[in-house]
């Protein structure tokens, strides 16, 4: 099946710093989503971005489908950005309609 690798596994920042999280995937995808898992365990949708670039406030994401990677940018980080960031993809082809394969996540800690 499709492989999803995220880097870095851990990231520690001071409040106000910027960061880039990366997601590499091993095959073509129909769908790519970024999630933030908060300290209560909830998965919060950040972006649905199978290709192109999107921005939402301090967060933006870019997916280059032909090169099989996606980037999540966090600018001017805040302590509330802390948590785990997951990339998840739906492999193209086959009959896996809607099935998402998750990466291992990046644990982000933002210190005041």
């Amino acid at each position, binding site marked *: 099946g499709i492989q999803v690798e995220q880097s870095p596994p851990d990231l520690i920042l001071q409040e106000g710093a910027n960061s880039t999280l990366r997601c590499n995937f091993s095959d073509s995808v*129909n*769908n790519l*989503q970024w*999630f933030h898992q908060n300290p*209560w*365990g*909830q*998965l919060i*949708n950040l972006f*649905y971005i*199978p290709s192109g670039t999107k921005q939402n406030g301090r967060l933006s994401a870019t997916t280059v489908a032909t090169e099989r990677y996606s980037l999540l940018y966090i600018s001017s980080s805040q302590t509330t950005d802390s948590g785990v960031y*997951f990339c*998840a993809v*739906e492999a193209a082809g086959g*009959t*896996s*309609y*809607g*099935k*998402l*394969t*998750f*990466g*291992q*996540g990046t644990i982000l800690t933002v210190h005041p």
Partner: protein
Amino acid sequence: EPEVTQTPSHQVTQMGQEVILRCVPISNHLYFYWYRQILGQKVEFLVSFYNNEISEKSEIFDDQFSVERPDGSNFTLKIRSTKLEDSAMYFCASSRTGLNTEAFFGQGTRLTVV
């Protein structure tokens, strides 16, 4: 804003007992999913469900697991005889279609088997 809701938030059960986890997907969505996340690990796909039948299931989804849409709004995951290793966060998700569409996740049910 429509959301996926799950109940209960937490459930503690004794090994060997049956549990039912409940989910109300977003109302105009047609595809439903269950995922699980063992503490500290990544989120894993369990099963997808469309048109009142299972579309796909993972190796994890063995005979101990079943899913059902008992009425027009609920979607349930049943574990017949729980094991210690079933302890995890279980997420329900739904999407409007099954292809090229965004999936929305519920807040999760944390299941602890003792």
